[in-house]
């Protein structure tokens, strides 16, 4: 019985085959209903009226096109800001012991805990017309809320922890030994950074960028609040999808949604590859440090 069901042989501590296959089956069914079917459906609906219509829905609708461009503008800027911040924060937390280090570590995670809508409201409260800086901004003729700088701010806030969280454990695992060695060999600060620190965490950084980018392009709640949702001006792709859906333009909504889904699939593949490489980086670091001796 066990021969037939569980492959070669069943170990004494394993559950009976019935339980095993029931659980595996259940997992597959849930995955299918909740993930695979909807995913396939997005593409099915998008292409339901043919490729020609799909193309027109995406690239011949001026407002949809503007939403795509807005996303392509906001996401990279947000990613860049997060990259700079993430590197600085990870460096500080992994390399220095200072007062408030624990506080900083937990504060980095705050944006993940706060509802994106609340995050959006925070920015409206600060930069909006009725906000603290509102009157001054209007005098200086700087538009933040209901304009792309606001979108960048909100997106950056929401994706804030991603790069830093990826880099902190990696930099801690890599340690500062190599950096100390580089300094003892005469390296200056920037040589140290470019030649030693950065190459050691490059896969982690790339992973952070990919994840951050996916999250930035897909952000809805925070962006919805700060953008004012002005069609053709401040809509991003997710906002536009929802708007098309509300207007009963299902093929249009699904066409744009299919673009976001493809982004997700690409991200998934890159993520798995990079995860594998980052894990190797960490393992390598541990091995070189602890077991130094023979191989």
């Amino acid at each position: 019985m066990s021969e037939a069901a569980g492959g070669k042989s069943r170990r004494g501590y394993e559950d009976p085959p019935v339980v095993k296959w029931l659980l595996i089956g259940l997992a597959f069914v849930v995955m299918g209903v909740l993930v695979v079917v909807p995913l396939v459906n997005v593409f099915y609906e998008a292409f339901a009226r043919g490729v020609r219509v799909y193309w027109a829905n995406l690239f011949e609708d001026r407002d949809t096109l503007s939403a795509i461009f807005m996303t392509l503008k906001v996401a990279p800027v947000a990613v860049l800001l997060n990259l700079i911040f993430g590197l600085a924060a990870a460096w500080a937390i992994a390399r220095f012991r200072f007062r408030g280090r624990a506080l900083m570590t937990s504060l980095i995670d705050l944006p993940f805990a706060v509802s994106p809508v609340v995050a959006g409201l925070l920015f409206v409260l600060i930069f909006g017309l009725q906000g603290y800086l509102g009157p001054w901004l209007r005098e200086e003729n700087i538009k933040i809320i209901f304009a792309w700088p606001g979108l960048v701010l909100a997106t950056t806030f929401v994706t804030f922890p991603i790069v830093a969280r990826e880099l902190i454990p990696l930099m801690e695992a890599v340690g500062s030994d190599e950096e100390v060695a580089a300094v003892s060999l005469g390296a200056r600060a920037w040589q140290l950074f470019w030649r030693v620190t950065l190459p050691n965490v490059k896969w982690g950084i790339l992973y952070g960028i990919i994840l951050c980018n996916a999250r930035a392009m897909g952000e809805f709640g925070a962006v919805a609040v700060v953008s004012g949702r002005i069609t053709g001006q401040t809509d991003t792709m997710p906002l536009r999808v929802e708007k098309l859906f509300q207007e009963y333009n299902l093929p249009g909504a699904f066409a744009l949604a299919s673009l976001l889904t493809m982004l997700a699939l690409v991200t998934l593949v890159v993520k798995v590859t990079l995860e594998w490489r980052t894990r190797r980086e960490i393992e390598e670091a541990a091995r070189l440090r602890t077991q130094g001796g023979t191989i």
Partner: protein
Amino acid sequence: MSITAQNIVKSFGAFKALNNVSLEVGGGQLVAVLGPSGSGKSTLLRIIAGLELPDSGTVRYQDDDVTDSHVRERNVGFVFQHYALFRHMNVFENVAFGLRVRRWPNKEVEQRVNELLQLVQLEGLGRSLPSQLSGGQRQRVALARALAPQPKVLLLDEPFGALDAKVRTELRQWLRRLHEEIHVTSLFVTHDQEEAFEVADQVVIMNRGQIEQVGTPGDIFEHPANPFVMDFLGDVNVFHGRVEGGRVKLGDFDVGSPDQPGKEGQSATAFVRSHELEIARSWNGRGSALKASVVQVNPARGVVKVRLLAPDFGLALNVDVGWERFAELRLSVGDQVYVAPRKVRVFVQDYAI
């Protein structure tokens, strides 16, 4: 290029790592700093390198005061215990690093690196990554990397600490030969006595942030300056007695005369190395001997290690007996024997170990 450290003081919080330490390393010498963990030996090395700054005191290379200069300006070669090789660079680039950051032209870099790879016997491995090398090979890459920019001094922190015993022995003999070839002033830290005594011209023994003794290996072994050194060198039996009539006595047992005159009744500590104790089946009464019984017999390399118990004093003794003598005595567990020291070192001053 000589190294001089003068009156170095360094504390980490409440812990005094170095307490007014002064050390001189002559140009071209290979010197070992030996001590138990926490003795401050690594801190001293890191201060000499500039990786750590002293609270007070000065460090000089030859006549240059380098106390306040940054590591990167000191031009030292530093070898780390865990190698700290650049994992994403191949062996060639690891060795070339110190030259590249100094902007050496490509051609000279290539020449110098090849020269060094030859010196450390790693020709042909230039394209390997550190992760593909054995521990011993990695350590040699680390050494080549440290030597590449022609450092004024070479500093090694427990250089063979992470290697297994066999590779360790090979590498330290190799380091000795290498030093005879290149003659750069070298200072290395170790907790391994054998390593220090086998490799170094001079040995510095440290304990609790202070230097206990400096000397050639022979000097230190023959004339330990104090009970700590004696005890640290190991393989030693300790007798705690009193000064009586100019001799040190443990009850009726006459241990020997103290090296320095001690006051009557003062407590004294006598050290006798395991191989400096004589075992006899009978005693003719000349000199003083302890009655003891054999507790354990362990054959070892070169000697037989015999463990004895002197019941009168509740004293356990370790004696190394040569194989020939052992055959003569035919010792077995439970035998009653006599033990007498051939050579004793007695310290009368109070000294906490």
